[in-house]
Structure formats: C-alpha cells, structure tokens
C-alpha cells in the first residue's frame, strides 16, 4: 500500500478502504469508545458493531486491556475538525449517539470504562501505548465498576403543573363569591400563583433530599451533574437536581422501587429515573469524579 503521501486522497472523494488499510493509513485516526479487559467478550462484541462514519469496530489490546476502536478520517477528527463537528448540533448528536451505541453494546456484555466523547489517537500503536501507560489505573477502575451500572435521577419543579391542579379552595373564585374588583382579583391571583410556585420548589427541594437519602444507601457512589437547562432540556418544569448513582446491577430493581411513588401527591414535583447506563459518570478516579 503506497497511499501514505499527503494529498493521496482528494477531499470529498469517497474512499472504500478495508480495515487493514485504514489502520495503517495516516489519513485515518483511531477513535476510542471504551476500555475493558482483553480476552473478555469484547472481542466477540466488537465485530458486530458499527462505529463513526460507518467504520468497523475492533479491539486494540495491550497488557491485558482492550480498547474498542474504529478508524475515523484524520481531518474531520483532528482538533480543528472535531471542534467544527461538535459545534454543529446535528453532527454532535450523530457522534454522541454512535459513541453511545458502541459503549452500550459493550457494557451489556462486559465491564467497560466508557471514554469521554471525542477521544482520538493518531493510530492503534498510540492506543496501545496509552493502554500500557495507564494500565494500573484502568485496572483499578474496571475492578471498581464491575457488576455496576449507572442510574440517573432528576427532580423537577413544575409550578405550572401545580397551578393546573390547584387545591379546592383556590378554585373558581368567581363562582358564588362576592364581587371582587378586577385589580383585587388580579392581585389575589398573582399571590396564589407565587404561593403555588414557592410550594412546588419547596416540595421539589425536599423530595430531592429524600431521594438522595434513599438512593445513597443503595448506591456505591454518587455524582452530581449540573441541572439541565436550555433548549435541549425538553422536560416540563425546571430541573433542580440531576444526579448519577453507581448501583450494583443486582440492586437496580430495588433502587427503582425505593424511588417509586415518592412524587405521588406532590403537585408540581416530578422525578425521572434514567438508565441503566454504562458507568459514564464514574469512569474517572473517585477523587476527580466530583464534577460540580
């Protein structure tokens, strides 16, 4: 193969290369999805997976560890190229979902350490060097994560939902009540709204504390994420707590049960459990994992 010369591939021209060609061609980089132990089910899982840009997923092993890797175009996954991609929401979503699909498939069959999005090496040799360099650390993390999954717990305050379902006393002030001036009615309404809002936030805060108490007893670790805001935070109401728990897989059900129904009878308060996830939030050493 002689296509190592720069410019051998004209931009935009689609190329079909075998995995072997991709691995040794410097116009391709190695994207790492997750790390696990070599000789486990990862070798069986990898060939069934499709990575970014439809690349085939393979394992790259060294010192008893294996990385799930696929080849990606070096240009688009250089620092510059990557930045451009990640700033485009459509491309970001595509990369995130593909990354997750690979990690998720690996997680269901083996203990894996998920990588942060956009972990790219120049080639497989560099991936092996990295595995050797940080082998002891990965080994310790994998041992800690074995038999665990991550569950996300979010608590929302939704005053509008509370207002839509008000207590009986606040209902229909214009029913048979003595006439109230429009100004006075407006003020009464505003006060009721503020009260409802305060109640919803107070109840949500109390619920978040209770959730934390119950969940912590069943989990091995907890990480606090920033409350979700902005356009992508599609859930109704305001997210006031966003946490991840590292839970033994044989206690996932128990964890769910412990939180079930906690928000019942609390107007304007909602609890949402996501997962089980691969242990993304616990893939860094404990000392570094407290992000916010």
């Amino acid at each position: 193969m002689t296509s190592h010369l720069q410019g051998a591939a004209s931009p935009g021209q689609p190329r079909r290369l075998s995995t072997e060609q991709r691995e040794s061609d410097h116009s391709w980089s190695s994207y790492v999805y997750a790390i696990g132990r070599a000789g486990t089910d990862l070798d069986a899982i990898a060939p069934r997976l499709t990575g970014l840009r439809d690349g085939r997923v393979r394992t790259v092993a060294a010192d008893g560890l294996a990385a799930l890797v696929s080849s990606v175009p070096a240009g688009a996954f250089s620092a510059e190229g990557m930045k451009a991609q990640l700033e485009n929401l459509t491309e970001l979503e595509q990369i995130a979902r593909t990354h997750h699909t690979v990690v998720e498939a690996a997680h269901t069959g083996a203990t894996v350490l998920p990588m942060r999005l956009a972990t790219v090496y120049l080639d497989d040799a560099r991936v092996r060097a990295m595995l050797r360099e940080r082998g002891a650390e990965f080994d310790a993390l994998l041992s800690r994560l074995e038999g665990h999954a991550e569950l996300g717990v979010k608590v929302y305050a939704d005053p509008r939902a509370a207002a839509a379902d008000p207590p009986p006393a606040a209902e229909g002030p214009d029913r048979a009540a003595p006439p109230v001036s429009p100004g006075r009615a407006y003020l009464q309404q505003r006060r009721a709204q503020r009260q409802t809002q305060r109640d919803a936030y107070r109840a949500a805060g109390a619920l978040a504390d209770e959730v934390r108490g119950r969940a912590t007893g069943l989990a091995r670790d907890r990480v606090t994420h920033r409350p979700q805001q902005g356009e992508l935070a599609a859930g109704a109401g305001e997210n006031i707590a966003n946490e991840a728990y590292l839970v033994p897989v044989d206690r996932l059900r128990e964890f769910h049960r412990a939180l079930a129904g906690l928000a019942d009878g609390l107007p304007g308060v909602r609890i949402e459990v996501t997962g089980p996830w691969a242990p993304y939030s616990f893939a860094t050493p404990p000392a570094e994992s407290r992000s916010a």
Partner: protein
Amino acid sequence: MADPSAPSDPFPEESLAGRQIALIDLLDRLLNGGAVLTGDVVLSIADVDLVHINLRAVIRSITPDGPAPW
C-alpha cells in the same frame, strides 16, 4: 419515571431499550463523564474543555428569547 403501563413490573430491565434517549442526558455523560485520556490524544485536554465549555454555553443560552445561533 413515566411507567404507568405496567404496575406489577414498573421498572422493566430494558428501560432504555426501544425509546430514544434524550440527547441532553447523553451529553451530560459523554461531555462531563467518561474517562479523560491525555498524552497522545489528537484533541488536547484543553481543546476538549474548550469545546465542552463552548458547547455548554450554547446549549444553555438557547432559550425562546435567544434563538440558536446556527
């Protein structure tokens, strides 16, 4: 968790299977979590943080009053 359909088994094992995961939940994990590798990474840790911060800023700044900048 919205799971009203199966009261006897409110939390099926594959609770994520068969439905689209919210992108924001995914990004919480893929941008804040995941093992961070340094060394020979093409994208340096500083770049990752930069991308990360820009992205969070964009995501957090998109509101009905301030439409997406793209």
